[in-house]
């Protein structure tokens, strides 16, 4: 078993591109996500017709973090004005009965414009002022800070899954699997050896990922980071087992790639990106068959809620059971190649 693990390690070390893919590609993608979802500090621009608004409101608006543009045309036909002036995010106007906001399209920019207008209205009427508080996390957290943990889990899973799945398919097609099975090696040693070999790289990848996230990208963790590393390691080992499992159904490396949409994409949706209890037809229960759900939920409980072992033991157990079941199945499937 250890000789196989040693061989896997030698092979990866001998293949610099795979090594780089396992270590640096996740960092690159996380940095990109950080930039995409991070706090942009965007200043929205809002068009108003100053003559038709109370003076106090105009002053209050100008005190907000926004560019206020005075345009008479905006209030009369806001749709046309927004179509012609793409740099403007919102048009705000007021009549006797109601005030109205028109925006070009629903986006994070329009959200910022809304925030500025609400701020101005609250400044005028302090009784309206709403003090928003969250039990976990703050109002000013960027999307990356609230969602970052999901990508940690997904990325750790994704890369290991592809690499281990491909390696086994290649081994089968090149005939080395048959040759290996014609030595007195036990079937469970093959599966175990693979898991250990890739598991060691998973440890390295996980530690680099977690440290990079916390110290470079500034993702904070309320709980103990060591638990996060442990969960991500279990998740990576599940990915090895799932990669081995998929390689049974794939005849070529190309077919492994074809499995990515089937195996990975649904898991990303069920990882916590979307609240699962709002899904129709109780689709949320599907998450119970998805390892990324267990991994990401547990990571969230540590990083966001600050739980310890008591809060995550169930998820650790679920992942362990997942690994045990898949490994047993994979060992049985090798019988196809050798009865013993």
């Amino acid at each position: 078993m250890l000789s196989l693990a040693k061989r896997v390690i030698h092979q990866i070390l001998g293949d610099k591109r795979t090594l780089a893919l396992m270590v640096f590609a996740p960092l690159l993608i996380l940095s990109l996500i950080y930039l995409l979802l991070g706090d942009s500090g965007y200043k929205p621009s809002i068009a108003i017709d100053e003559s038709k608004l109370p003076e106090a409101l105009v002053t209050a608006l100008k005190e907000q973090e926004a560019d206020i543009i005075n345009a008479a045309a905006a209030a009369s036909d806001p749709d046309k004005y927004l179509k012609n002036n793409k740099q403007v995010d919102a048009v705000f106007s007021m009549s006797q009965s109601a005030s109205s906001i028109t925006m070009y399209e629903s986006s994070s920019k329009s959200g910022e414009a809304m925030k500025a207008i609400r701020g101005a209205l609250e400044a005028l009427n302090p009784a309206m002022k709403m003090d928003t508080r969250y039990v976990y996390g703050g109002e000013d957290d960027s999307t990356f800070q609230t969602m970052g943990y999901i990508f940690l889990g997904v990325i750790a899973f994704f890369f290991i899954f592809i690499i281990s799945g491909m390696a086994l398919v290649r081994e089968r097609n090149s005939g080395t699997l048959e040759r290996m099975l014609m030595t007195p090696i036990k079937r469970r040693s093959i599966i175990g050896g693979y898991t250990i070999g890739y598991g060691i790289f998973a440890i390295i990848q996980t530690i680099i990922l977690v440290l990079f996230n916390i110290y470079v990208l500034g993702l904070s963790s309320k709980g103990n980071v060591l638990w996060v590393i442990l969960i991500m390691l279990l998740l990576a080992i599940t990915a090895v087992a799932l990669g081995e499992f998929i390689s049974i159904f794939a005849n070529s490396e190309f077919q492994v790639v074809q499995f990515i949409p089937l195996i990975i994409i649904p898991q990303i949706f069920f990882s916590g990106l979307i609240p699962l209890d709002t899904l129709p037809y109780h689709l949320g229960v599907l998450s119970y068959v998805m390892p990324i759900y267990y991994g990401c939920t547990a990571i969230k409980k540590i990083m966001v809620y600050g739980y310890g072992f008591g809060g995550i033991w169930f998820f650790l157990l679920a992942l362990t059971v997942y690994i045990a079941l898949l490994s047993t199945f994979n060992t049985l499937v090798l019988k196809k190649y050798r009865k013993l």
Partner: protein
Amino acid sequence: MDITGRNICKSFHHKPVIKNVSISIPSGEIICLLGPSGAGKTTLIRLLIGAIPTDEGEIRYGQTLIPNLALLKKIGFMPQNDAIYEDLSGTGNLSFFAELYGMRKKDYMGRIDEVLRLVDLKEDSGKPVREYSGGMKKRLSLAAALLHEPEVLLLDEPTVGIDPVLRKAIWVQLKKLKEQGKTIIVSTHVMDEVTECDKAALIYQGQLIQYDTVSNLLSLTKSNKIEELFFLAADKKGGDAAC
């Protein structure tokens, strides 16, 4: 170790590939499996080593029925495709296989040196295999099969793509191994190589059409060429052995 196969049948996707082959191979001999490509040589070798199960019939090594895990230690197998790891060096490949056979490092390092010399790869042993030529890969694959000093060797087309000088050297080595009492089964579609063997098993369309000493087989022909026996078999149509 004697090898006996009795009434072996094997089909793939309902198409019979090996049809009722019975063969007994005494130890200490070199047996050539001879036949055109597609005749079933590789399938027969994989059946004999237990890589695939027989549909019918049985194969014994001595008294032991295969598949048998302990027996695998005594068998050396060289598949038709190279089946070595491209990312590893020559030595890396051999150490891996040595460990699979349960050899200890201090024992196998010397042995690896020996087999590398045997196949003339000593100088290139540190290079990754992906930089090897086709012939070098073939030789490394042969070295891997010889590594654990097996009692029985099954080699599937070991001399394809190897130049005549080295081919001769390999045959010399195989004969030396034979003198040590090892049983060697070699498949080939190069009819000339038959003279290197003690016995030849002629396989044609999944059937064993002749199995005898090479001199006996040659005496059956007019031209003293083994091909003639295949031409005879091709003329004699029908008479498929049922499974």
